[in-house]
């Protein structure tokens, strides 16, 4: 980590807040659209959300201070920014290089003319109020569906740990080859997933021709359908720009893209010395790349909150009811027996989890008589939160430092292998310039029950359609052909078991899902519009009266 550069970034971000404060009057929040009902608007203006910039752990109101001393607030702030509808005056649009305001545009960027969103939630907004699915960002001629972001932080961490494991094997192969002065071939396996093998030579060079499912550099890139991006931070800075025309000078990404190693405030190590890191979307806090008259549109503290929020974003839930329970079990068994679980692997373990909390969301029938553990009438789900915080009093007189406890964590029901596969012509994707993308990272299936339509392009209406689509077609071979054929040969009832199982993997609206942080209160006025329970982080704030 280059702390000096990080410090420079902090200073730049502090300067950034001065520019952003001019946009205050344009924000859609309680200062602009009140009075409003509880939960109906963001309680802080954008300037208040930017706060004291990046700062440090001793600067109240800064992103580093809040992330380290008031993490629940940092997560909630990230959520509110995710839901925020940005305005033109804040720099929303035009897209960089869309020909409007940028006469230097040259083609080749798939985001050109992809459509302009005014909020992260415009594309990732279903179910209500979640960082879910729902948008169609036309970055490819045959469409590209916006996936849900549930469990995003777990995906980032697993991919990163798997990368470390693969690279350790490469190092071990080199060690052995050098020590024994002969070629050494080792299987590349990370968290139970095989990525082929690697051969090291006595001169410490390596042959990666037998590596499969990942780049020769062995960096697993979990984000985007084609497995393109390493980190949440790169993903969100890129999306702010490509989908919303909001540019950010993020000094953290600048360091990584410049070939340095840097630790993000959420603890992700971006190794520019090893990997190619995507850079910030603005050259500086004063540059106006899209010529819309607004600079520093997404200050770095906002990026910090967004990254922290998405690191912690809830994993998907399960909706196994007394009615579907046995069908779901049979379906899971069938799914495994016909080989789907070979690539859609259900369980992984994170050795050192960077999150400070987890949430387990399961079916719980709506029983107003027992509100403390009851799901609500909207979705009959109940979420139980667990904290993994180690609080330390650093003697500064400030709130305690609340950091993750370096725990291991078992990720269940994720159903991916983080590998790129060729599923044949049925999944191949045309690009605007005529090339064909053939490799796609295994889509995690959590949430599959509530995310139709299916496929990276949303071209399959039903789960059955998308399963059958895994078969080989048009003279191409699908790596999943055997499972697709096995599924096709199932009896109708056995097929329905598999579908029942997949439909039990659900997303949920956090503000409408009862939890141990806010169970239902059937006695509330206007129940269930009020008092239906929520996954509320406010009770965990240092100051519960200061709402986000």
């Amino acid at each position, binding site marked *: 980590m280059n702390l000096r550069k990080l410090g420079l970034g902090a200073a730049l971000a502090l300067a950034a807040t001065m520019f952003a404060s001019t946009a205050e009057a344009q924000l859609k929040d309680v200062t602009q659209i009140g009075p409003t009902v509880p939960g109906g608007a963001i309680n802080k203006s954008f300037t208040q959300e930017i706060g004291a910039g990046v700062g440090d752990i001793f600067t109240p109101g800064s992103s580093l201070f809040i992330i380290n001393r008031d993490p629940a607030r940092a997560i909630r702030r990230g959520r509110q920014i995710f839901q925020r509808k940005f305005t033109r005056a804040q720099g929303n649009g035009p897209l960089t290089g869309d020909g409007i305001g940028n006469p230097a545009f040259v083609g080749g960027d798939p985001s050109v003319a992809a459509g302009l969103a005014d909020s992260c939630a415009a594309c990732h907004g279903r179910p209500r109020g979640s960082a879910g699915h729902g948008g169609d960002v036309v970055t490819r001629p045959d469409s590209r569906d916006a996936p849900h972001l549930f469990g995003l932080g777990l995906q980032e961490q697993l991919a990163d740990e798997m990368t470390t494991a693969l690279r350790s094997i490469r190092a071990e192969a080199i060690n052995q080859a050098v020590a024994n002065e002969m070629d050494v071939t080792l299987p590349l396996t990370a968290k*139970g997933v095989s990525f082929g093998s690697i051969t090291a030579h006595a001169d410490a060079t390596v042959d990666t021709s037998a590596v499969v499912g990942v780049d020769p550099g062995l960096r697993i890139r979990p984000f985007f359908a084609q497995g393109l991006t390493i980190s949440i931070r790169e993903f969100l800075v890129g999306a702010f720009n490509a989908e919303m025309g909001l540019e950010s000078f993020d000094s953290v990404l600048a360091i990584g893209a410049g070939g340095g190693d840097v630790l993000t405030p959420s603890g992700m190590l971006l190794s520019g010395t090893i990997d190619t890191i995507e850079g910030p979307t603005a050259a500086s806090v004063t540059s106006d790349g899209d010529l819309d008259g607004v600079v520093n549109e997404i200050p770095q503290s906002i990026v910090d909150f967004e990254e922290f929020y998405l690191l912690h974003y809830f994993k998907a839930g399960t909706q196994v009811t007394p009615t579907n329970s*046995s069908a779901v079990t049979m379906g899971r*068994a*069938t799914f495994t*027996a016909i080989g789907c*679980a070979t690539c859609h692997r259900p369980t992984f373990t994170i050795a050192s989890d960077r999150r400070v909390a987890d949430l387990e969301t399961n079916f719980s029938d709506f029983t107003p008589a027992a509100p403390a553990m009851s799901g609500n009438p909207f979705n009959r789900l109940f979420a139980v939160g667990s904290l993994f915080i180690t609080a330390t009093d650093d003697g500064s007189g400030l709130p305690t430092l609340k950091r993750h406890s370096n725990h*291991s964590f*078992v990720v269940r029901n994720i159903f991916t292998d983080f590998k790129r596969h060729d599923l044949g012509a049925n999944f191949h994707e045309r690009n605007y310039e005529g090339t064909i993308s053939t490799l796609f990272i295994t889509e995690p299936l959590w949430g599959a029950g509530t995310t139709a339509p299916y496929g990276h392009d949303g071209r399959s209406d039903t789960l059955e359609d998308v399963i059958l689509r895994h078969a080989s077609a048009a003279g191409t071979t699908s790596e999943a052909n055997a499972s697709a054929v096995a599924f096709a040969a199932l*009896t109708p009832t*056995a097929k329905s078991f598999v579908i029942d199982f997949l439909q039990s993997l659900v997303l949920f609206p956090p503000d409408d899902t009862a939890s141990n942080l806010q169970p239902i209160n059937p006695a509330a006025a206007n129940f269930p519009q009020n008092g239906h329970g929520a996954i509320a982080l406010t009770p965990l704030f240092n100051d519960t009266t200061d709402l986000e």
Partner: protein
Amino acid sequence: MQQAPGRLPKGRSRLVWIVPGVLVLALGATAVWRVARGPSSNLDPARQRAAEAAAARGAVADLLAKVRTEPDPMAYVQARLGKEDTTALSELVNAYAAWASRGDALEARRLIVKQFLENPNPKIGFEALLQAVALDPTPRKQDPLWRDLVEGVGRQWNAVSYPAGRDLVHTANSPKAKDLLLESLASIPAGKLTPDQQNGLVTDLIDLYPDATADQKVALDKALTAMAGPDVVQIMHGQGIKEGSPPLAAIEKINQEVEASRTRYKKVLEQIEQEDRAAKETNAREATKK
């Protein structure tokens, strides 16, 4: 003779010059060598890592070698019974692994297992047991204590301890420890878990099934049958789900329910149609009267 403050003895004062001098020379020589060698390769760190790994393996091997020749294993264990300090625990862990090939130490090793499982702090005892099992190089199938281990660990699981075991089977690094946890979880009597926990265990056993060995699958089949019924096991074996194959009991049941529902629906439809006809006739009669 007392030394004046701030002054070094003569011998040491010479050292003050000699030591840095040698260091400077050494660094200089290294720098010259590096420049002469050309751009750095990753050979040096590779050698260093290999050496470090070998040193770590050597340290463990030394520890095990020390205890391997212990003349009276039972006395060695008994001398440490009831001791809860980390030294005693770690000595027992090493002894368990070091005596793996000694037939005369079998009872002493059995006593070590008992000692771990009865540790007043179950977490510490359990971790020690898993560490010992991981260090023991004996293949699972040839391990004379394997059944003891599976049954002993299996007895530990109940509604309170099960969630930890459920995670441990995934987080354990050693394949042998993983196997032990898997087989012990499969041996839990269903009655010791809550219904939700039983569902969770069924789910886990299904998920872990493809990676289980043939003999482990026998244990998993037994557990799955007990908690989820025989159909799930048949499905895991690829039976009863393909077109033309004899249907599973569950499928038959569902088909019967669907058929019964259709029959009910048909009756309701007939009833509605009948009432509709009657209503039309009544309306027609009323209209004629008017």
